[in-house]
């Protein structure tokens, strides 16, 4: 069932509208890559992919930079303040995407960062931070205290304990956060459309692909090809990271 939509997109990328509507799941007559070339050329998907990579990679870096130390602190703390902060992070799940749109737009305009990727690079990690912190905190709580105590006795400080002890042991958690955040950042549409805007030089892939669609008439072959182009990085990253996550989980299970 999961492969069917991908199959439909793929075969549609080689067909004209008439063939797509007449036999949606039928095989194409030719395997010409013309539709792919047209979609990349017309919507400048080459630039859009580059922009999406820049936005996604930087946002992932920011989220790791913020979430890992926060989760480390929360996992080791035991006071009421820490519990309240952890709950505050959990409350982040309750904010609907649309509710934050207007204030976010106003903030971007006030900061002079409207129509820039910079604002989105700062904003996207904020949307994923609650999940990342909550997830990583749980993973870090599974690290045995004995290991940390042994490191302390050897003279390790807070940062050394985090980098040398905790980080290697919570790789599955970090990979999980990376996968979930990558999918969210790569597929983000609304804020990218509103904040970054329509400039070819800056827009992301999710904003570029819909320009291949028109209310009067659409070449669905070209649109499907463009959609396939957006999916390739998602499938590639998912395949690579998922294998690593499974490997790390298995390794961690044996150690514990």
């Amino acid at each position, binding site marked *: 069932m999961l492969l069917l939509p991908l199959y439909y997109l793929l075969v549609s990328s080689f067909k004209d*509208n*008439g063939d*797509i*509507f*007449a036999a949606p799941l039928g095989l194409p007559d030719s395997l010409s890559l013309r539709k792919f070339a*047209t979609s990349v*050329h*017309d*919507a400048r998907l080459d630039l859009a992919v580059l922009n999406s990579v*820049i*936005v996604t*990679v*930087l946002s992932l*870096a920011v989220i790791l930079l913020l979430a890992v130390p926060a989760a480390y602190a929360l996992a080791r703390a035991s006071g009421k303040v820490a519990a309240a902060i952890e709950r505050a992070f959990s409350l982040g799940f309750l904010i609907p995407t649309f509710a934050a749109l207007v204030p976010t*737009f106003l903030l*971007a*305009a006030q900061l*002079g*960062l*409207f*129509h*820039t*990727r*910079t604002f989105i*690079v700062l904003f996207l990690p904020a949307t994923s931070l609650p999940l990342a912190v909550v997830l990583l905190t749980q993973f870090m709580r599974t690290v045995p205290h004995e290991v940390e105590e042994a490191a302390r006795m050897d003279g390790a400080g807070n940062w050394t304990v985090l980098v040398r002890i905790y980080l290697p042991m919570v790789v599955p958690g970090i990979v999980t956060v990376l996968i979930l955040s990558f999918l969210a950042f790569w597929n983000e549409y609304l804020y990218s*459309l*509103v904040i970054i*805007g*329509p*400039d*070819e*030089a*800056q827009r992301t892939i999710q904003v570029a692909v*819909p*320009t*291949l*669609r*028109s*209310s*009067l*008439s*659409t*070449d*669905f072959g*070209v649109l499907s090809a463009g959609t396939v182009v957006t999916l390739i990085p998602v499938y590639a990253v998912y395949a690579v990271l998922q294998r690593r996550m499974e490997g790390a989980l298995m390794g961690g299970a044996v150690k514990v």
Partner: protein
Amino acid sequence: MKRWRNLAAGAAAIVLVAACTGCGGPLDPKTGDPDTLVVHSRFAPGTYGADTYSSVVAQFERENPGVHIKNLYNGDDIFNSFETARLAGKEADILLINLYDKAYSWTELGATPPVDRYLKEWGLRDRVEPRALKAWTDGQGRLRAFPWTGFTWPVLVNSKLLHKAGIERAPRTLPELRAALKALKAERIPAMTIGGNDWSGQKFLMQVMQGYMEPAVAKRVFSKGGYCAEPQARKGLRLFGELRDAGLFVKGAQGLNADQMNADYLEERAAMMPAISSTIAAVPAPLARHTEITGFPVPSDGTYDKPTVYNGATSTGIWLTPNGAEKPDLSEKFVTFLYRKDVVQKFIDKSGYVMTLRGQRPSEERPLVSESSRVTHGDTVSEAVMPDDYVPAAVSTPLNRATSLAYTRGTGVQAMCKALDTAYRS
């Protein structure tokens, strides 16, 4: 280890610099290059008319050395995209967009300045057809934008398929239409294709309904709703239901959209289709040779005495924005260029555009579009009231959804009018 850290820091710095490239660049017309005019449009490469637009922009830049046109493209999000940019004061200088939906309120809200004085000062007033000036002028007498393109929206009839069913000519009366439906059904030829699930179906439903609606009544009902309470609307819906149940539409019409409708007609899987001029321009020459253009038959005891078509002047207009008004010389150069006879003729010839400017000749390369203009403005058809000019912006999308129900076989008048009225309350 240190080397790796330095490498990572260097890479991060490069990416950060790349990320910030373009911040406050040409998208900020106030602080950007004064010789750059930012134009926001739907003419994304690959869309209808984009090639012609691209070539005339190149021509403009050649004729005006040093001047650069920065093009921004949006699909259906262009209205929202412009509005947020306008709120931030970073909107494009010129907009090429139709008068639809939210755009009706822009001049009144001050989002775009009226262009009456520019039209006069730049010597363009005599170029515009009076009906276009009227269509683009708001209730306070302000011209919202420079009128540019219009549309025709007749019915296309595949005469080859009709002949196959033994029908000599496109039906012009309801008895002729009913006879044609019977003959086509006997030959298993779907009569009319339609996007019953989107704007194309909504417009056609309103067109058939107007068979019994006087223009003043239609304008009132389209503006405020009240389909169930209006006897003329109910009578029109009854006619629609009768024709639908007699087999006017292709199977599953309630789930189709305009693209599927176009594909059905262009692949000769249906005998008729209501088609806007941009679709007519896409009809390939072999099919165009056996395509007749006409209006949709009306009842003999109805409002109109001839088959109806839609016809409008509110397709793409050239909107000046507040940022554009601060660059009057550049804006004037570009707008007057787009109004120039040879440039307009290129759009007519190459892309089959229906322009609302005077003194142009019909397209030789797109004869079907020329024929649709001739029929639409001739004396064999009547012009129905265009719903878009009256339906409130917030209602148009719910109204499209409500339309789908009307295309479902067996749906009664009460259910149809109730769904339409509900759209006005959503």
